[in-house]
């Protein structure tokens, strides 16, 4: 793949027309300056490879934060016809329902400065993270089966959080039609002590504040007033989901041969949606999605306990209200309109989020008029964004948008660039406290390793897929 194969559609949209085995075009949302890296990184080729899969509809999409993945690019969206199409575990990724929860507090940033260090230290000692960071909750298979059948509802029923949280979680915190019997014992073993744990890599918990408001009305609806303290949790389904992906990649490897599917890359392994292999995967994947919803719910609860302990009980019952909780590694059966006809599709979002527009029936009633909150974490030294989805996203990208900044340096490049530097000190000078289990993780996750998320967000906004609501700046961060 070379850059000349990308045809400019608009300043922020590029197309690779169908050729060879491609069934639909590949469409990449990016500015011209982003293209060179996208091509060099092999992500453009991967987007084109996805366009070869059976039953793909409209196009294989790439968001501006796209980078190279395994088979599917990270930052990719692909929808498949429910009868003619496929489902692919590689199109979801190992960390099924990796996602973000945003909470907003009743506290102003100017009133919290003296408590910040204590708050982050208490959160760091309360919420397990990093290698071997097992949680206090250890569940046997029978109880885990209940968790993965009911997701965040299980957590709330067991005292982790409040019922009001549930309506502000994608799918209300539970994907229907999960199939606990389609999950291996190994996955249950890996997940046994991992509920309520953050993990490592790019997962984090961050205290921030609303630094800029772009859309007063939408921000007010979400409670995101200027200077308000926020809390962002980025984690997923932990070893439970990783094992399910691993198990089903092997099953799909065989299914590809069984159903005679031709692939350019064996990591695109998949099965027809009508096959038992696909139905088993979707059932198991929904279990992992529910595990992740429960995981973020429990972490949110633990965070609330720490806020109460450090700041004293809130007059309103809790200092932290859930704004929204979104998945950015998932496959979902959704209804979309194509050529004036409403049909069901299996929409894969790998490193991409839903961005449903105003009026969509799946939105919480509070957000019906503004559109779905789209939570875009940046990096720990700069800023993150809250956006909302649009009708245009519904029409162009099956209601999808970007999910984050996207890496610009490999982990080794970042470690090299971090040699001789004290990332903790550098962040402290910018007024950001960071706590990490490993210095290596800090170097790998430093700001310079990521694209400036504002460029990614601006591209999605120019393309009309989202609207900006607020910018959040970090104050204190926990990394695994």
């Amino acid at each position, binding site marked *: 793949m070379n850059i000349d194969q990308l045809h400019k559609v608009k300043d922020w949209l590029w197309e690779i027309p169908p050729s060879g085995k491609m069934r639909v075009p590949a469409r990449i949302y990016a500015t011209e300056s982003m293209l060179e890296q996208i091509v060099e990184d092999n992500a453009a080729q991967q987007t084109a490879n996805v366009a070869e899969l059976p039953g793909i509809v409209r196009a294989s999409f790439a968001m501006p934060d796209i980078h*190279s993945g395994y088979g599917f690019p990270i930052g990719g969206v692909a929808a498949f016809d429910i009868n003619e199409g496929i489902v692919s575990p590689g199109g979801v990724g190992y960390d099924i329902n990796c996602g973000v929860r945003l909470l907003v507090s009743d506290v102003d940033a100017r009133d919290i400065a003296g408590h910040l260090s204590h708050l982050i230290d208490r959160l760091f000692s309360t919420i397990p993270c990093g290698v*071997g960071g097992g949680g206090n909750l250890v569940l046997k298979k029978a109880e885990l089966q209940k968790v993965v059948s009911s997701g965040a509802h299980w957590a709330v029923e067991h005292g982790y959080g409040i019922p009001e949280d549930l309506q502000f979680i994608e799918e209300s915190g539970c994907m229907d039609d999960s199939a606990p019997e389609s999950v291996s014992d190994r996955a249950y*073993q890996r997940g046994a002590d991992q509920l309520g744990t953050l993990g490592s890599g*790019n997962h984090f918990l961050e205290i921030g504040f609303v630094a800029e408001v772009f859309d007063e009305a939408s921000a007010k609806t979400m409670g995101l007033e200027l200077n308000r303290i926020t809390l962002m949790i980025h984690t997923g389904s932990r*070893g439970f989901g*990783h094992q399910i992906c691993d198990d089903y990649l092997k099953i799909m490897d065989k299914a590809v041969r069984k159903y005679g599917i031709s692939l350019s890359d064996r*990591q695109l392994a998949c099965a027809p949606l009508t096959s038992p292999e696909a139905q088993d995967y979707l059932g198991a994947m929904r279990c992992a999605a529910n595990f992740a919803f429960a995981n973020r719910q429990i972490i949110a609860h633990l965070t609330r306990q720490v806020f109460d302990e450090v700041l004293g009980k809130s007059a309103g019952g809790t200092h932290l209200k859930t704004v929204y909780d979104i998945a950015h590694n998932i496959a979902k059966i959704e209804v979309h309109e194509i050529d004036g006809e409403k049909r069901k599709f299996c929409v894969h979002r790998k490193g991409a989020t839903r961005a449903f527009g105003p009026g969509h029936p799946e939105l919480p009633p509070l957000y019906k008029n503004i559109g779905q909150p789209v939570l875009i974490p940046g990096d720990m030294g700069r800023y993150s964004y809250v956006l909302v989805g649009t009708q245009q996203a519904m029409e162009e990208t099956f209601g999808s948008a970007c999910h984050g900044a996207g890496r610009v340096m*490999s982990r080794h490049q970042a470690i090299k660039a971090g040699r001789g530097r004290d990332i903790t000190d550098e962040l402290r000078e910018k007024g950001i406290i960071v706590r990490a289990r*490993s210095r290596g993780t800090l170097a790998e996750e430093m700001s310079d390793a990521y694209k400036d998320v504002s460029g990614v967000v601006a591209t999605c906004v120019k393309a009309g897929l989202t609207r900006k609501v607020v910018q959040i700046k970090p104050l204190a961060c926990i990394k*695994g």
Partner: protein
Amino acid sequence: MKPKIEYINHTADIGLIVRAPELEQLFVYSAKGMFSLIADTTSSTPDEIRKINVTAEDIVHLMHGWLSELLFVHETEHIIPIEYKISELTERSLIAVIKGCTIQHGNIRLFREIKAVTMHNLEVKFNGTYWEAHVIFDI
């Protein structure tokens, strides 16, 4: 030649190229390379023993199965493998005994979690004079 581990870049993740004169060494050094990404075990003493038994359809899947099994033991039992003794190795099966160190508060310097051993560009090949493996891990 001595067995050699080389780290390779992938945008979001990390990979290894391992070279060794013997197939058995290739499997041992691939495991050592993987756990060198997770922790610094240079001053750790083993306190646990586990038997590992893996079968697969070919040598590439055997490498995937071996590393995945070690990752499973590590994650579920909080053990970092340190010593490896392979007693049986064919292109489709492997039996080994590993000695590992249990992770306890502060006894091992930990770096990062590995989510999975991917099949992405996974290779195990003999180059005439030495064996070579390419493995990429999801971080």
